């Protein structure tokens, strides 16, 4: 463990401040709670919100898993896992069921999360209305009034113009029937996993200084219309490694002729299936 720094890097005062924001976020599902984000030794936009949330709630007995794009071995996931191994000395794992705390960027593991687990999302832009209205003063008012007509209109205009909704990821959701929430840039395939999850889901946006949460068993509905229901990504192929037909796939271009190969983005899910130890959803 690193000398000269507190357990999990942040000082206890800052952790307490962040935990207060987390508690408020849990109490008001989907509401973006402003918090006094600290500068972290990792750059803004690289997971500082998630890192601060993790640092504030992690204990010595926690087992941490860090993924980026579903994989445990992508560079930034390695870097963040190393940061906590160094500053908190906690046990780390790549196995989803063994982790008590999972920090993620852009994915939710394929293996269903269970009660008692906490998943922390790294969030670049917490405001789902930001692309429709750049001003925080205006979007806060829209949330206060539950005025989400602009978002429905955006989805409707997509359908009118393209015949379908064209938002590919970070698809807007309504939490507990009240707040419109950005699920962070996860693919649509992951949106249904947010709904009534037995795990606690926390979202940290460091640069934008916002924390929000979906408590266990809370409804999270992806916006849609009766005649244009919400859809997820589909592939004609199965995973070329483990043969999974239900997982989110990474597309790999494997030669100059543009031959494609598809494999699971969730490396732990893929490895577990290969090892034949289950791991079904």
């Amino acid at each position, binding site marked *: 463990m690193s000398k000269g720094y507190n357990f999990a890097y942040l000082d206890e005062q800052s952790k307490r401040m962040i935990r207060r924001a987390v508690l408020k976020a849990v109490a008001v599902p989907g509401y973006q709670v402003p918090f006094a984000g600290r500068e972290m030794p990792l750059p803004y936009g690289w997971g500082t919100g998630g890192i601060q949330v993790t640092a504030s709630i992690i204990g010595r007995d926690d087992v941490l898993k860090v993924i980026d794009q579903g994989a445990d071995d992508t*560079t930034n996931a390695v870097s963040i896992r190393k940061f906590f191994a160094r500053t908190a000395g906690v046990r780390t794992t790549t196995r989803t069921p063994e982790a008590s705390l999972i920090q993620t960027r852009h994915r939710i593991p394929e293996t269903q999360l269970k009660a008692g687990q906490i998943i922390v999302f790294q969030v*670049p832009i917490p405001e789902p209305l930001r692309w429709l209205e750049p001003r925080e003063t205006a979007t806060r008012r829209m949330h206060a009034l539950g005025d989400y007509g602009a978002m429905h209109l955006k989805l409707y205009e997509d359908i009118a113009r393209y015949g379908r909704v064209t938002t590919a990821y970070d698809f807007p959701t309504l939490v507990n029937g009240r707040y419109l929430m950005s699920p962070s840039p996860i693919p649509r395939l992951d949106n249904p996993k947010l709904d009534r999850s037995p795990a606690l889901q926390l979202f940290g946006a460091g640069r934008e200084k916002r924390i929000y949460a979906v408590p266990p068993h809370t409804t999270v509905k992806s916006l849609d219309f009766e005649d244009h229901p919400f859809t997820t*990504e589909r592939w004609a192929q199965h995973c070329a490694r483990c043969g999974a037909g239900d997982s989110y796939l990474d597309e790999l271009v494997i030669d100059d002729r543009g031959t494609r190969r598809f494999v699971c983005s969730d490396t732990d899910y893929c490895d577990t299936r290969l090892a034949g130890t289950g791991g079904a959803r």
Partner: protein
Amino acid sequence: MYVAVKGGEAAIDAAHALNASDRRGDPATPELTVDQIERQLGLAVDRVMAEGALYDRRLAALAIKQAAGDLVEAIFLIRAYRTTLPRFGASEPVSTAAMQIARRISAIFKDVPGGQFLGPTFDYTHRLLDFSLEGEGAAPEAPGATTTVGPLIPVTTLLQQDGLIEGERPDDATPVGDITRTPPTYPAERDVRLQALARGDEGFLLGLAYSTQRGYGRNHPFAGEIRHGSVEVEIAPPELGFAITIGEVELTECQMVNQFKGSAEQPPQFTRGYGLAFGRGERKAMAMALVERALRARELDEAVTAPAQDEEFVLSHADNVEASGFVQHLKLPHYVDFQAELDVVRRLRDEIEAKKAAE
């Protein structure tokens, strides 16, 4: 079977080792010392202290060395260090009126009480490369008595005595905001705006300031006074009940005198724009003063029409640690999101093809 690109720990460690050896360069060349940076690259140190929001020349010099001269990276190092420091309290407001002055100029009066002092400056130098600096030479001699003077009455105070410029409105009743401890909310008050500008990126503020001069939120500025020198920093520990001096900091202050304004109750008077930077950050202080004045549009009942007047726009984008991180995060893998976009684009294309085939 394919081999995935693995960003293993070993690769990251090797990349960092490579960066460290690149920074050091050819070992046949003597290594830069932190002392040399601190004393001979003083203006770089000033900028890192200002935008790093930490007054420590030595640490700023170390950060510049570690960052191989990349000042935004050095600023980030300082910020990340600063945030771990315990906070014992806030100082008393420093008095720039009591400054020991090394440079003081006013562009609005030919002569001002106490006089004008050019002091150390690049102004009026001819920007010709001095090839004699290629070699090592004797240290240039400082001309005569270059000691500091002071205290000198601020030029804006002279204007204020005649009621020609708006009065400063100290408000000791309201606690000063702290942008490092309270998340930003809008509308932002002047104390918060000034803090954000003081640590804001010099280049960003310079561009915005320039835009006001070119008509995007023009506010008729005059450099009322620019002063550079050192001021004492005092704290008043509650157990003592009085203020004690704990050190000195070098500052550059710019007081812009701007567009006048009057009303039914108030005869016309000039308005203020304020800039303050650590060290000799004169360009920064001047740019800050212009933008600061532009951001007072709401307060002074002016139409908000230009980017420099829009506080949400300016304050949320002025921080280079935030901006640099978020712009560069695009380097991180986005294959999941891109795959989702591919899925959408392919489906749209398939639908169009199917429609064409049916026709």
